[in-house]
């Protein structure tokens, strides 16, 4: 099954699928790639721009992966000779692979930044935590395609209740933290040494517990994904 999961994962990276994501997320790419670096002053030095993009790219990859690999099974797979257990294994393993792969992209970029001297260890650890939380949050729960925002929210409220609020707070923390660390690393002005510790504290004390709380609903999300009725009716 492992080979199948890896093949299916990479199979999703096709232009036909990617272009939907690109057009939907096109503004985000322009915003993070051009507008924010210029407005934020991250273009003053080449290394600042590289640092900023090395923070943004894993985040962007995580978002793309979330859209390309929703936690769902195509209808044809419900009709294929697989038992519920095999479907569960497929969903769980592909989800774990997705989280690990997207998380590892963040790890590689962060280690690369530390190795290149673009980032200190404390900020690097905070970034790592950020990437892993984002990978868990996005790739662990990516809803099926084609759902409207209203349907998604209703489903979240029905199935998750408080979790939908937690997801929003967690996502905000991740975005603010990423941006904050980018500012610390990409501005000429050196901030007070405690600032980076504050970001690390936010990651460890806020993001990680919120993500862990959110992950408590993972089992239910898997059960929904392997049930045609639950995921389609």
């Amino acid at each position, binding site marked *: 099954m492992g080979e199948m999961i890896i093949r299916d994962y990479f199979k999703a990276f096709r232009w036909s699928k990617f272009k939907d994501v690109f057009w939907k997320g096109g503004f985000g790419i322009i915003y993070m790639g051009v507008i924010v670096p210029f407005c934020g002053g991250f273009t003053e030095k080449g290394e600042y721009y590289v640092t900023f993009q090395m923070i943004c790219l894993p985040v962007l990859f995580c978002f793309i992966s979330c859209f390309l690999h929703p936690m769902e099974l*195509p*209808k044809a797979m419900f009709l294929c*000779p*697989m038992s519920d257990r095999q479907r569960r294994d497929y969903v769980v393993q592909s989800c774990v692979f997705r989280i690990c792969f997207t998380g590892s992209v963040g790890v590689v970029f962060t280690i690369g930044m530390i190795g290149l001297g673009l980032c200190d260890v404390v900020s690097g650890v905070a970034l790592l935590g950020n990437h892993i939380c984002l990978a868990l949050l996005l790739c662990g729960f990516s809803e099926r395609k084609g759902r409207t925002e209203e349907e998604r929210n209703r489903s979240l409220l029905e199935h998750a209740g408080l979790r939908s609020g937690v997801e929003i707070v967690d996502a905000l923390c991740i975005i603010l933290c990423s941006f904050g660390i980018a500012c610390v690393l990409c501005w000429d002005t050196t901030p007070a040494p405690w600032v980076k510790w504050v970001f690390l504290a936010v990651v460890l004390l806020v993001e990680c517990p919120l993500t862990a709380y959110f992950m408590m609903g993972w089992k239910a999300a898997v059960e929904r994904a392997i049930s*045609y*009725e639950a995921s389609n009716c």
Partner: protein
Amino acid sequence: MYIYTCTEKKKRVGVFEKGECEKMEHAMVIFENVSKKLGNFTLKDITFTLPKGYIMGVIGPNGAGKTSLLHLLLGLYKPMEGTIQVDDKEYALEEAEILSEIGVVLLDELYDGSRTLLQNGREYGRFYRNYNEVLFREYLARFGLEEQRKYKKLSAGEKLKFQFAFALSHNAKLLVLDEPTGNFDPGFRKEFFQILRKFIADGSRSVVLSSHLTEDLDRMADYILYLEKGEVVFAGDIEKLREKYRLLTGENYKIKLVHKEQVIHVEEGTYSTRALVKHWPGYEYDSALTVTVPTLEELMYFMTKRRSK
């Protein structure tokens, strides 16, 4: 009115009243008191049996529950009550085994649009232990489908042909076909039915076919399951069903002379009146009335009229 069919091995017994259904020895599909609630719609107490070697037509007006019933048969929906058996296996215990024996043609977009037909066949064929790619390619060629064409480039009818080719290529014992014929051209429709006849010829395989085109089912189906508003109006051997009803045409006052218990629905026209009645063997109708065996379409029409009344 509920009527159920029970058939012993190789022998058609016919239409039974509710509660008289005996378990068949060689049944391909058994639905026993199956109920399922789907939002505001409910499939109620569905019971029928399809023996091996026969074609069952599932008919009914729009929203009657035909597709929901097929979804139950395919294990996509789990019944709230009752049991479903396919070739003596139950979904709860042997889902993968059951699905490996079912070939499916649905109206949904089941396959990957950006991949070629051959790639799609390989992609999903890997799940079937009996998938035969040579056979699959043969069917593609026979149906006039280029194997290197992308699935999304196919027309609605061609997509169904592709599904049909795939369904036939993994040695399925049961074909479940949801309204495929409406999208087929007349030439292919003929071939389609020839293939179905050949498919069931050895007596070990069956077909469940839902269709609005009752003319096709009149010719092809051995069994009929008529659904309306989620309930079984009748389920049984098509010949027995035809035997059970008569269509009377004639003057209104003559039709009114027919025993009231027999009459299912009367439709009064300007010049003549038509009525669907239960046929009692030996009963002599007025000689002024034209008595015919109703077609499935006529049966459906009058049954629907009666229920809406």
